[in-house]
């Protein structure tokens, strides 16, 4: 099985929580451990540039387009869970 296809099918079989965590670890290049306590600027990589990468990752993972108000409000891992609910995504 080609690697790209294997990667896609692995992504499809992930739970929403796993996908959500994955967005943070990949976009902000942080380990999964402790990610649930993450806040904006809690790590160096979560600045305005990291924020754009994180939002892009979330939009891609869940097939959504976030309102700018929600992009502005996304200030922590926890807050993001509430925002995802607005788009019908239960984490």
């Amino acid at each position, binding site marked *: 099985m080609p690697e790209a296809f294997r990667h896609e099918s692995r992504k499809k079989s992930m739970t929403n929580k796993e996908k959500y965590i994955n967005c943070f670890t990949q976009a902000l290049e942080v380990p999964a451990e402790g990610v649930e306590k993450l806040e904006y600027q809690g790590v160096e990589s979560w600045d305005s*540039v990291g924020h754009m990468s994180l939002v892009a990752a979330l939009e891609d993972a869940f097939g959504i387009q976030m309102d*700018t108000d929600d992009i502005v409000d996304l200030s922590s891992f926890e807050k993001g869970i509430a925002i995802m609910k607005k788009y019908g995504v239960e984490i």
Partner: protein
Amino acid sequence: MKVLNATWDEESLGVRTAEVSIGQGDSLEEIGSALREAEASYRYLAVKLPTTRADACFLLSELGYTFVEDMVFLEHDLHEIRRTPLEQRFYDSVKIERMQNGDFEELLSEIDAGSFSFDRVSLDPYFSKEASARRFHHWLMDEKSRGAILMKASYKGQMSGFFTIRDTGDGVYSSALGGTFMKFRHTGIGINNQTPEIVKRLGGRKLVIGVSTNNMSQIRAVVRSGFFPVRANHVYIKHTDIAK
């Protein structure tokens, strides 16, 4: 080598201040001698050393100077900024326009409340946050008196930030001051850099900015907008009354 009596900083910081610029051709002997002489007259010295003069770092250290930051100068040739669709959506949500009088008062309140705290003074334990705010305040007034245009950024009708633009001649503009207001920190809104587009509309050909390495997130944001680094200075400071 230049030793300037920084009267503009003295007014803000409350101590006699010298701003020293070391040149490419200054010998270590000349630097040492000029600094020793300046220390007799000033209580606070800020020394700017081109990064190409790493040999003088050791001398400054021996003389009791503390490294506080690198000031990186970046330029933008006003080429079109490529934004992802997400960045473009975010960019479109922020309105940029010239400040009016009422806006200026709002900006001054934001500065006085300590909103802009990345400079070497605000990070210096020997200076107060109030001194840092005063310095920023005076700097802004100075830029304004030298003809800088003050622009404001608004998100949904609320002022979210500002920046200054000044024509320094020959189509070259500088943007010495700018920042995001406290309420809009931690929102990602700082990624929006519209300064090059404004300078292009004004007929400029190049924009120059200086960003401290103590503000890495700003460096990342401006590099993302197409600025490229052209030179850097190490900045060292000394409080002579504390060192003695």
